[in-house]
């Protein structure tokens, strides 16, 4: 049984991490700006990035379903295991729902999305200002939920790495040799 994630899964994971942090920060920053060409440009970039992240999570889900991730280390408690799985699927759900809510919000507000200024995407809902305002709230709220879950995700990874020292983080780190990843797993649990 492989104890590390596949290189593809690792690559996709860190690509998503980078994309999520950047797109989240951009979203937070751009909405405070007064209307200007720069603001419109940043909104477009945010939407393009969001659609790219939507495509990325679809690819990740396909990869995840086709390739079993390494099993949780032996000795993982039933509750901890359950929390790990629930957390991961919640992350996937949010990574799907957030770009979709943004896309829907854009449609409802009457701004069609043209991906990278080239590919026009269909409007998901009809134009409706009230729905647009509601979807904006949904989009923002989901983002803060994601922020909270990601903080939990990172905290758990750091806990495993520095407190439990069970090599869990190594399974998802690039450039860590397989031998080392496995060696650290062989260490007896404290």
């Amino acid at each position, binding site marked *: 049984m492989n104890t590390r994630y596949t290189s593809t899964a690792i690559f996709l994971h860190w690509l998503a991490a980078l994309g999520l942090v950047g797109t989240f920060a951009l979203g937070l920053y751009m909405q405070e700006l007064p*209307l*200007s*060409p720069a603001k*419109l*440009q940043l909104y*477009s970039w945010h939407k393009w990035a969001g659609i790219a992240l939507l495509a990325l999570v679809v690819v990740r889900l396909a990869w995840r379903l086709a390739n079993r991730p390494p099993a949780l280390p032996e000795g993982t408690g039933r509750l901890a295991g359950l929390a790990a799985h629930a957390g991961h699927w919640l992350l996937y759900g949010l990574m799907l729902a957030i770009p979709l809510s943004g896309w829907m919000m854009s449609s409802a*507000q*009457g*701004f*069609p*999305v*043209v991906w990278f*200024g*080239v590919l026009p995407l269909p409007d998901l809902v009809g134009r409706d200002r009230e729905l647009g305002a509601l979807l904006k709230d949904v989009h923002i709220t989901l983002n803060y939920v994601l922020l909270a879950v990601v903080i939990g995700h990172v905290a758990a990874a750091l806990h495993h790495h520095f407190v439990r020292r069970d090599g869990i983080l190594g399974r998802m780190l690039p450039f860590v040799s397989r031998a080392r990843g496995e060696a650290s797993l062989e260490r007896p649990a404290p």
Partner: protein
Amino acid sequence: MKMSLFRSLALATALGLGAVGAAAAAPYTALDAKASSITFGYSQMNVKMDGRFGELKAREFRFDPAQPGQARVHIEVALGSVDAGYEDANAELRKDEWLALDAHPLATFVSRDVRALGDGRFEVTGELSVKGNTREVSVPVVFQEEEGKGVFTGSFTFQRADFGIGQGQWKDFGIVANDIEVGFQLVARSS
């Protein structure tokens, strides 16, 4: 006798142009502003955006399908009634960089020449004035009669730079394109 000959000629011309039944109706002399609409469209980073103006009125409106050459139209659009789809944009459009609404609250179109193209189609040439700048525009119009009302539909494109619309930071066409497409549906009655 001479008059009736002229009339039948006019009727024949109108029929020949496809404005069937139009000759029977009185000339259209009153714009039904409530039933009429003016929209605009533009491209923002390749995204098609649109909006509308809610208030317009005709200072002059005269159109007889039988005598298109004598038609005369003078339309005023209250630019303050602009709705670009969201509040920030509407507020931005009021500024001097865009429409300078305080100094130039109205856009006008005054026809100078109306030419019948046949099949209920006309070409209206006239002067479009926005923000103190006047340019000649040529507008293709489709005329139809619906339930005793005259309906004029069409669109034309102008370049915002010609009118000084969108200056300063907005001058570049990379974000908001130069072409602005105006669409309209004017409904007129024979008062």
